[in-house]
């Protein structure tokens, strides 16, 4: 784990949880553009820290959300968000 990840992981996890909570609500309410923007921001934050696989998964989810009609997210979007939430949970240090 590099120094940057060590130092900023708690802030990343907190921000990621907020973003994914918001993304989940946006997927349920079929706001695909806002959902894609949220996933885009999430991917950027993961990338800047060097969390490459997480960033790539978020980018895939964003691409998927952008491929949808403007007002229909559907269950697959929620599935993407759930997968990302699981990956973030795996990053959380166990107490």
């Amino acid at each position, binding site marked *: 784990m590099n120094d940057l990840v060590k130092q900023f992981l708690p802030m*990343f996890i907190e921000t990621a949880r907020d973003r994914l909570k918001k993304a989940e609500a946006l997927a349920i309410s079929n706001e695909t553009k806002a959902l894609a923007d949220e996933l885009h921001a999430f991917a950027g934050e993961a990338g*800047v820290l060097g969390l490459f696989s997480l960033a790539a998964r978020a980018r895939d989810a964003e691409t998927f959300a952008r491929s949808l009609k403007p007002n229909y997210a559907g269950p697959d979007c929620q599935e993407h968000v759930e997968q990302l939430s699981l990956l973030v949970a795996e990053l959380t240090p166990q107490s």
Partner: protein
Amino acid sequence: MSEQVKAQPLPRRSKRVLVVDDSPLVLVTVRHLLESVGLEVEVAESPFDFEPTQGLEPDLILMDVNMPQFYGDDMVSFFKEELGLRMPIFLHSTLSDEQLEVRRASCGAEGFVGKAHGPMKLLETVQRALGWREPI
């Protein structure tokens, strides 16, 4: 006996980088990264928070692209055409390299670096843009 005057090296100002990004997490991370190699870093959550002061202009600007209310590449055009800023501006975004190259060429930015490439690539790009011969 004449006193010999030794030439003193002029104090060298640290290079200054302005980072514009709407994500507070990206701002603190990039600030930490760039300061770790001796750069001075100024951050702004919005390009409108930045007021260029004569003599204190950054040597390089890193500009996010997707921000609420505006696109960073539009701001690059504004900085260059309306404010007359001459320092290099690099786009720093989650977009793919292909998308970034199109936007870079269109707005007149000097370069870009994808967030997906991680912190070391960002550091290397910044150091090269500032003319460091051997980036750390």
